[in-house]
């Protein structure tokens, strides 16, 4: 997390991942793409996905948008998924994630500790290559602009209050 989140921040965008693990850098790449483009008051953060940091990043936010790469079997690299948790904590619904110690655990922990954001949106892109190295695979690189636009719609579009 680049800085402690300010209380009362209306929205936070969290890019999860590691730019030295190829497509795992998709989340950070989207956040980098969004710099200078998001409405005032929206915080942009990059994190490694460690649950305690995630909780600290989103606690108190009205809307938290997460962007992350996922491993899928079979994978369609670049395929996008969007999951929304309205008023998390009431439904018991949890996004399916390949992370054993990641988003799902962060959500579970935040629910137990009453630290969920008002609305949580998860954008996931299916990865092709999570090996060591820098640079996104072509399919995931091509999805970065699409993901950035989707995040902007979440922050500014008609569904923003939904």
């Amino acid at each position, binding site marked *: 997390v680049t800085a402690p989140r300010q209380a009362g921040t209306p929205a936070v965008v969290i890019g999860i991942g590691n730019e*030295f693990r190829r497509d795992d850098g998709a989340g950070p790449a989207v956040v980098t793409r969004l710099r200078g483009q998001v409405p005032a008051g929206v915080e942009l953060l990059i994190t490694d996905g*460690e649950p305690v940091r995630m*909780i600290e990043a989103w606690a108190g936010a009205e809307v938290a948008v997460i962007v992350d790469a996922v491993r899928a079997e079979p994978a369609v690299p670049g395929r996008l998924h969007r999951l929304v948790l309205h008023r998390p904590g009431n439904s018991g619904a949890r996004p399916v994630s390949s992370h054993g110690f990641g988003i799902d655990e962060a959500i579970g922990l935040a629910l*137990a500790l009453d630290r969920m954001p008002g609305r949580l949106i998860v954008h996931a892109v299916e990865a092709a290559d999570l090996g060591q190295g820098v640079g996104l695979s072509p399919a995931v690189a091509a999805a970065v602009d699409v993901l950035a636009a989707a995040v902007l719609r979440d922050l500014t579009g008609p569904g923003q209050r939904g």
Partner: protein
Amino acid sequence: MSHKHDRTLFTSGLARVEGEGAMYVRVTGSRVDEVRLDIYEPPRFFEAFLRGRSYTEPPDITARVCGICPVAYQTSACHAIEDACGARLDGPLADLRRLLYCGEWIGSHALHIYMLHAPDFLGYPGAVEMAAEHRDVVERGLALRRAGNAIMELLGGRSIHPVNVRVGGFYRAPSAAELAPLARRLRDALPLAQDTARWVAGFDFPDFTCPHELLALSDPGRYPIERGTLVTSGGLAFTAAEFEQHVIEEQVPHSTALHARLAGNGQAGDGRYMTGPLARYTLNSGSLPPLAAEAAAEAGLGPSCRNPFRSIVVRAVEVICAIEEALRIIGEYRPPARPAVPVTPRAATGYGVSEAPRGVLYHRYELDSGGIIRSARIVPPTSQNQPAIEDDLRRFVQARLDFDDARLTSACEQAIRNYDPCISCSTHFLDLRVDRR
């Protein structure tokens, strides 16, 4: 469960360890005949990635090996490059480096104690389930972690991949006034750390002794954190520059990580050794600051600790130590005349070590006269501990063959978590699968 046939335990992803790993245990009849911990480790990639880059870059680049212990990577890298260039930090700059490292110890240990290790002792599958029933306990852990992160954010600029660290010191040094709120925060955290030590000291610990030789840093007069020379329980004493004469790394077929052993096979005769909290504590318990020493005594640790399951108690004592040390440094702090000492490159090889939360982290860099890195070597604690972990598992499983597979697998995972292995420090993907054949 019948034990008349062969059985195999295989966990393709280990829960609640940092990163990726797999465990393989094969039992034939009543004998454990194979134990493997498969690990997939990023430092080798970074060694290649660093070649051809400037001597100023390793602190930033290697910090990205691990989001849990970036300061360790930065510090060992800085030590090694400063050593190559003949630069030396002292006074407030050296103190600030120790202070930053204390922040990492507090944050990393709090995460491991509360989120990863304690659920094992209390019978929960994980921190989420533990939080549902012990919210106050988990909140205490999070408060401790935040205190550590506060140090890292103030000195490092941020708590993951700190950006304020540079070869020779910092880009900017804080004023005494800036450190004052940090001191208040740490004073508030101190009783939480003391409660933590009392809490974990009350857990039930399996009776288990680790016979391995121990390797840790020694920093005369104080508990080793960010610097020191190397010592072993077998009586070896050597400098960072001599590390590769004493520690041999070998490729093993089942892992991308190299296995380390002591040259000449050490005192125990098998070359296995252990680094990390138990080694640090056993070789340096006499150097703990007063409140940490008091907590260790209250927790019944004695001057040495060789039960890996009790590493959670040692970590709790080390959190107190880090808070005490941080408060001492802040109390004595006078801002340095400049935030960094000049570091002029030269053709040389430099060596650096520090005590990452998980154990000794060694870096070596070979520079040319223009400061370009010709070669890099990083030896992380987990690859050093891997042979010891596998040996622990072999003996641990052998004594528990009456457990059914599920219980045995779970016990093995707990035994692995004793070491807080950073199996692949820099990725958050983890699959958990249990196959029984």
